[in-house]
């Protein structure tokens, strides 16, 4: 060597370095904790190379950022990812939200370019797995909400994000019992739009019917929740 270097080159292409890397992969693939001790012990047993040489290889892998500092996920460090934390905060702020809104408002840059759906679903799965959020199905929508929210509450919050639904529930709250066929006139909306929503509300057990008289009314068990949400805009954030 021109520069009079006496030590042999240890590069990423060195067979021993590759073998140590293989051992690191093996430890991780067995879902075990990878730390210096476990890697050192296993590599020492398998490769039978001197302590200093092995430590130099581990040092090289860390320096080249092939082995990086980090540990398995626990609930405490799941939110250390910036996007994931924002997703969780967004869900907490809005109570119950559909996937598309999260994608638009959290996983997008200032120019409005969205991150991929795959990335968002990955973060949602992590939040689900570590019980930060839960999901419910409302009609065709999968809705995500904080894990401490009652599902009924999530359904109502999501439903009331729609203006017509909100008008229907306000009307029912004021009048108690009303003929299904009169609702669209009372709230001044198109008949088919109102019928579609009433059916959805029935499906989700938010309103009940007295079929013979074609009458509808709010599920008595949910009237309190609806009142709270209708009259307290900060309810979601406070909870």
């Amino acid at each position, binding site marked *: 060597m021109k520069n009079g270097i006496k030590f042999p080159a240890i590069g990423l292409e060195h067979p021993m370095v590759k073998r140590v890397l293989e051992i690191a992969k093996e430890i991780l693939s067995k879902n075990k904790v990878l730390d210096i001790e476990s890697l050192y012990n296993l590599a020492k047993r398998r490769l039978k190379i001197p302590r200093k040489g092995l430590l130099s290889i581990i040092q090289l892998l860390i320096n080249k950022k092939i082995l990086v500092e980090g540990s398995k996920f626990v609930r405490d460090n799941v939110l250390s990812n910036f996007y994931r934390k924002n997703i969780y905060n967004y869900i907490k702020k809005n109570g119950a939200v559909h996937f598309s809104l999260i994608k638009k408002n959290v996983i997008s840059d200032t120019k409005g370019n969205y991150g991929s759906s795959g990335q968002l679903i990955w973060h949602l*799965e992590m939040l689900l797995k570590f019980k930060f959020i839960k999901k419910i199905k409302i009609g065709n929508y999968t809705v995500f909400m904080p894990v401490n929210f009652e599902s009924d509450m999530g359904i109502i919050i999501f439903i009331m994000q729609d203006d017509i639904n909100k008008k229907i529930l306000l009307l029912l709250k004021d009048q108690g019992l009303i003929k299904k066929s009169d609702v669209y006139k009372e709230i001044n909306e198109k008949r088919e739009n109102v019928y579609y929503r009433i059916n959805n509300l029935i499906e989700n057990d938010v309103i009940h019917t007295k079929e013979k008289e074609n009458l509808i009314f709010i599920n008595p068990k949910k009237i309190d929740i609806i009142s709270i949400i209708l009259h307290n805009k900060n309810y979601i954030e406070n909870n």
Partner: protein
Amino acid sequence: MILNWAPEAIVDIIVSVIILIAVILTYFEPKTKKIKSLFYIRLGIFSLGLFFGFDALAILFLSTILARLIAFTIIFAAVFLTIGLNYVLKESYQSIILTIVISYGVLISFLAWVPDSIIIEYEAGYLNVNWDGIFLIIADLYLVLPLLVIFYWGIKTWLNSPFLIKKEANILLIGVFFGCPITLLTYFFYYINPIFILISDVIGAIGVLIFCIAIIREPKLLYILPFTLYRIVVKDRKGYPLFDHDWSESNISEEMFTGFINAVQLMSEEVMNIGGLLDINLQKGILILHDSELITVGLVSSKFSQLLKDSIINFTLDFEQMFKKQLIESCNEPEKYETAYLLIDKHFSNFPFRLISTKKHPLLLSGDHIEIPLELESRLKSIVMDKKELNLIKSEILKAPYGLSEEFLSLYDELKDEIALTSKKEANKLENKIKNKD
């Protein structure tokens, strides 16, 4: 002529030989040859070896003149050990302790020639040449001072040593422990029973030998306390990064680091001339920049250091020489400069690597090197097109609980029909509903 083969003379010869062997070993170990601090420590230990040698000769020949000359070997030992430790601790020979050691040394050299300071007496049935009176007390106290400084340094070095050289730091600690407190303690018993001086000498020699072995095995031990080396970066004249190497985590942000290098590259011709050096005090560390004809090298450390300055200049010269062809051809692919790792070994081999803090330091593989089952990998690739996002997910799969990847895929399948809804128009529609609600 009949020699006085007293037990202390024999022990002194053995101890002297052990110490001189230790000194010779440190001299012949190539990695330790050029270390300035070790040069002085070696002189100090050599003087200690002479001390025992002269003591042996004084007893063998029952010579009071040789016994008085011993005083100078102690002074040399104390002065050189103090200078050596000063270099270890702050890259300078000067310190208050050195002033005290020299002043105290003047007193000793005077007291050594005072009548009755050396006596010949029977000790445990053998004739011995011993220090006596005030000289004995002052000289004994004089030995304590550098030993306490060495002990303090040894403990501090051991406490601060990074994981990778902890084993050698343990050896050093054992050596320092034998050489300082245990030696001093057994020497103290000499005042009760003279036999303890033999034990004390042997323990001291073993301590010195272990100390030297630790330094020979790992000269980095001498660089643990003066400063922490964080990072070195090499950029070409256009600002492309060619090589970087980390020794430890730095508080200095990446932006600030590269920003300074870029700024210096812009102003270098006006301010620092090619080949010049610039120190920038960043509060959290020192950035030393060296600009050469073809490259700019930036190095971050915790403190200013002349040694680092010299190292960076030599590193730059070697880097230019080693990669001259690539640099002239303006090649800016970092892979082509990977062998610069050898130059780090050459110029910075004595600086400890601190990225690994403990043996329980948790590690993961970075995204590019993660291998997951092929089937899962191909599905992930079909879901996540962006390489950066894909790598993030791959790296998180390894950190996530078992089975999470399958759950992710089934959630994706579940939501895939709704993904169509994520068009801007649909999302706006949903968002308006929320706004109206407010």
